[in-house]
């Protein structure tokens, strides 16, 4: 019986108690989300191609679609707001949506390559893992916010450049991206295969985009579409963005409330289906 042996139990009892190993949940969740955030930032830093290629689409939407429809004057906009200005928050939300939908494909790819299995074997609760992924989608979509803000400045669109408003804009886009990535990861948990998910992804992104107020005001839609739009978190996201950037009348608490509830529901749904991907 050496001194070392005698000392062991007390040391180990301490080292292996749940309290020593696991931080409390209110520190665990932010810590995991921050981890996936930082990982996403490093990936972006290593490979910027996606950043550049992703920037092309919103530029085309604004320059081609936006400029053309500005001339046609087919879409009624609030007084004093050009169609281009009206459109750009919608394109901001849309390009974040396209990025977020990719995350379901990414989680299937991570599953096929064994990365997901390994992540799930770490002391990371499923809810924390999904939250981390969801907010990583948010980080990526913020890059689109920057692209569109810069482009809008060049096009001389009159935004409200109040930093607080811009922070709110980033928050709304992050929440929106978090929700849509959860939607995508939920579908991934159902269909389990990349090919099928690509099909479903294509099939849902367009309706999410068109059955929202991103391109045109809800007023011009037929009644049934207005109903769809009211149930579409995208509409609330765009509504919040327009309110903060253009000063159009909005109910920001309602917008952010709906987005927050949607994120919570999305995280719960995707986390519930995650074990299917672990098999």
């Amino acid at each position, binding site marked *: 019986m050496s001194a070392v042996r005698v*000392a*062991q*139990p007390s*040391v*180990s*009892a301490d*080292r*292996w108690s*749940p309290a020593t*190993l*696991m*931080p409390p949940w209110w520190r*665990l969740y932010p*810590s*995991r989300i921050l*981890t996936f955030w930082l*990982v996403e930032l*490093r*990936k972006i830093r*290593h*490979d910027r191609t996606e950043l550049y290629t992703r920037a092309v689409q919103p530029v085309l939407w604004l320059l081609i679609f936006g400029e053309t429809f500005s001339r046609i004057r087919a879409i009624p906009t609030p007084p004093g707001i050009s169609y281009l200005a009206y459109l750009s928050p919608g394109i901001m939300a849309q390009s974040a949506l396209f990025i977020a939908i990719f995350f379901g494909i990414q989680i299937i790819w991570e599953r*096929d*390559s*064994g*990365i997901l*299995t*390994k*992540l*799930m*074997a*770490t*002391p*990371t*609760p499923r809810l924390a893992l999904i939250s981390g992924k969801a907010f990583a989608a948010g980080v990526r979509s913020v890059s689109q916010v920057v692209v569109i803000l810069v482009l809008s400045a060049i096009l001389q669109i009159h935004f409200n450049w109040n930093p607080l408003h811009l922070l709110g804009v980033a928050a709304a886009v992050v929440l929106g991206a978090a929700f849509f990535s959860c939607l995508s990861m939920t579908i991934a948990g159902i269909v389990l295969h990349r090919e099928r998910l690509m099909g479903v992804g294509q099939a849902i992104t367009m309706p999410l985009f068109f059955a929202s107020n991103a391109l045109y005001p809800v007023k011009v839609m037929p009644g049934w579409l207005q109903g769809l739009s009211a149930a579409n978190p995208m509409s609330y996201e765009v509504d919040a963005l327009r309110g903060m950037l253009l000063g159009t009348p909005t109910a920001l608490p309602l917008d952010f409330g709906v987005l927050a509830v949607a994120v919570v529901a999305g995280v719960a749904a995707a986390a519930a289906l995650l*074990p299917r991907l*672990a*098999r």
Partner: protein
Amino acid sequence: MTAEIGLPEGAPPDGRQLPVACTDLRVSFGTVQAVDGVSFSIAPGEVFGLLGPNGAGKTTTIRVLTTLIRADSGAVSVFGYDTRTAAMLVRHLIGYLPQQLSADFQLTGYENVWLFARLFDLPRQQRDQRIREVLAAMGLDDVRERLVSTYSGGMVRRLELAQALVNRPALLVLDEPTIGLDPLARGDVWERVSELREETGMTVLLTTHYMEEADTLCERIALMHHGRIRSQGTPAELKARLGPGATLDDVFRHDVGTAIEDEEMTGGGRDVRRTRRTAQRLG
């Protein structure tokens, strides 16, 4: 220095609990009974090999043990902690290497290990030092800032070992650690595992297809087929059953071959017959 990588201060929980105790484990996927009443235990410091053909239920057993899936019945405990009720603690005790090459190719070697250091809640002050230690132990010190996409297969596998070791696991679980590697890289991986074992006395559970490797590395072996353990013992014991000069390959063929006969008597699966046809064709 390498001792730092091994067991955490004070063996987990009190050194008296078995690293793995698995009793009458059953797991089914739909109508397929993947694991059908498996029982085994691993002693502290032991290298235990779970062998068997594809679809034998090895990986499913490991997935229950690593808390990734739940068993239909039976129980697995890791150092006395039940994998169902104390999943998070069990995960803290295990270092896990899945079958596929699962490092993130979009990150550097250092960042891959850093991710796991964070996910295992290593204190910030210790993180960097620990990451460098495990990378050095796996011989990846000078390539740590390179993207993993530039690594060779063997380097990726060593990096994954570093990832699995960063939390100083008490039990290392290696699922087909050398699959798809060339003989040189395979030898390298086993060398690192052996070194690690000698220096830390860590308990290791591994699965492999390569019988000679299992023979030299494992202290005890369980041979699985169709979700059941066909035989269990030290490599010497298993070989002795078949008489002098028998290899572990012979044991494998004997146990699995017998099972195929059984299956055919009861009108077993088509894939079994197909395997047999292939075997006949190959002579």
